[in-house]
């Protein structure tokens, strides 16, 4: 089972868009049984596939809807409130992934308040309470039997949630806008990659697929910064030869009631679909070859 995470501690660089494209490419185009995990308290990834609800206990945050398998008269569900998010792993409870409109894609959605609570765990407790939990969950036999790929959208932070993702992932991709601040976010992620790589067993390395230039515009700023990274001998090996351009269509398919819902439903000649396929095919080839 491959665990692919899109990470960057700078917000607004397209982690959710990339996670969505990758999850849909693997499940819809490649027919690979895939689990999407939303580890970002903003829950935007979850909102793409589920009608997330406002949490009455924390009105600024979202929570998952009632699970379609939940039945109030089922004696097995007595201790369950009918909602399940990936944050249950921090509370010793089982996670029940939600089916999505895509046949091969399930989703373990986020729960804003619970994820924020995990992010705020005290330093002395964080290793046991947060860092190890996602890896434990993904190593469970049930999960490994059900899925061949896991795609994780992460929070724009370097905190316990992102560390937890680093510990669980087999591969990471760092999407970044070619601007100074997002590139600083790459540095933050390379630091976490370094720490994790030095703590890993030899037979399960954390592979950095690379830096994905995202929301790329043909401006001097973007071109110059990309060139600067490509010209550095150490960094250039990790700058992906594919990129995603700034296109309004990526925002349009995120809208509620969007039709089509996936970029992969567009016609073969659509430039955004071609670009998304090129990027996802490249990453898939690197991960599964």
């Amino acid at each position, binding site marked *: 089972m491959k665990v692919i995470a899109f990470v960057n501690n700078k917000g607004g660089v397209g982690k959710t868009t990339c996670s969505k494209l990758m999850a849909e490419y693997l499940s819809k185009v490649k027919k690979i049984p895939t689990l999407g995990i939303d580890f970002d308290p903003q829950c935007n990834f979850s909102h793409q596939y589920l009608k997330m609800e406002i949490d009455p206990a924390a009105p600024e945050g979202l929570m998952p809807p009632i699970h379609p398998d939940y039945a109030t008269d089922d004696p097995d569900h007595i201790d369950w409130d009918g909602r399940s998010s990936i944050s249950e792993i921090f509370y010793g409870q089982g996670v029940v992934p939600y089916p999505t409109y895509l046949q091969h894609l399930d989703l373990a959605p986020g729960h804003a308040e619970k994820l924020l609570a995990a992010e705020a765990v005290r330093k002395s407790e964080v290793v046991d309470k947060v860092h190890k939990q996602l890896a434990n969950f993904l190593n469970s036999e049930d999960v490994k039997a059900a899925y061949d790929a896991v795609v994780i959208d992460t929070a724009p932070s370097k905190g316990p949630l992102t560390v937890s993702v680093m510990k669980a992932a087999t591969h990471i991709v760092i999407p970044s806008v070619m601007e100074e601040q997002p590139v600083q976010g790459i*540095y933050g992620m390379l630091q976490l990659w370094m720490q994790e790589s030095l703590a*890993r067993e030899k037979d399960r*390395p954390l592979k950095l697929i690379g830096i994905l230039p995202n929301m790329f515009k043909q401006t001097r700023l973007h071109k110059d910064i990309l060139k600067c990274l490509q010209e550095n001998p150490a960094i250039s090996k990790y700058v992906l030869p594919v990129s995603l351009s700034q296109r309004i269509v990526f925002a349009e398919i995120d809208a509620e009631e969007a039709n089509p819902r996936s970029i992969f439903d567009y016609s073969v000649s659509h430039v955004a679909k071609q670009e998304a396929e090129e990027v996802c095919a490249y990453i898939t080839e690197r991960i599964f070859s």
Partner: protein
Amino acid sequence: MTKKKRFGVSQALTRGLSEAINVVENNAAIYRNTVVPLSRIELDPDNPRKLTINLNDVRNGLKKEDPHYEKKAEELERLKELASTIESSGVINPIVAYKLGEFYRVVAGERRCLASILAKKNEIEARVFNEKPKGFGLKLVQWIENTAREDLTLDERIGNIRDLIREYQGERGEQGITATLLKHITSLSLPQATYYLSVLNAPDDLRKAIEHGQVRSLDKAAMIAGIDSDEVRREALTACINGSSLKELRKIIAREKLVSSQPKIMREKAKRGRVASRINMGSTANAKVVQAIVQSVLSHTNFNRYSEIFSQVAWDRYDHATRAFRKLVEILEQEMVR
């Protein structure tokens, strides 16, 4: 026409990105920083540090019938001091180990492990190599670990260096080890490397004294090892064992040099320039030397008749002593012609 503005990533950020990448590329899959259970720790029987106390003693307590009970009890006391700091502040530097079957064999950090067990800890932070380090690498780590230790005996240090050289030669082929090469391998200073090399090649008596802990200072051992004469070396060694200082040992060696340098005066040397036709009688600031020479000659029956000439000499005055010596040489030249 104005120039178009160019953008880029700051130098500091580029450096940070490259450094992180290089660290992973150069170190990942070689070792990992982790926490290992102390129950799976094993000590390296080949570590040149000859700690008498072992895991079993620390886990189950010392037994009075143990032949090394006293030494172990001393070591245990010292470990307890370390254990109390570990209890309060933890282990500051991780130990170095490698995976050996189900266990982790300690390359460096035996005392930290034993003290952590005493401090009732269950785990210890470790840098774990994925494979057993090769001979030279292993010995080098142990050397680096041991070199900062104050309680390591001279014999243990020398043993460590000897192993290090053996493994180095084993890996790179037999080659002469010079002080410069040893300095390069161990990061010792050149004088220290020189001392170690001379002690490594020391005669048996000195080596035994080091082994028995009778000679504990590297400087003194190196000084004694450098003495050519067996007799003088034995004298210096005995003095060292009896507590002589470096200065006192230097005096003994200076005496040896004086004796051994005598024949050199007689040695024929190729000379340049005019052929010598006179003998330089030398000079001295000690007028008593001149008085002693004059009086020695005058005490001879052939010369005592000249005593009266020297009766008025003020020997504490250089001009008087000089004139007296010249007079003596003059007399001797006359007497020798006869």
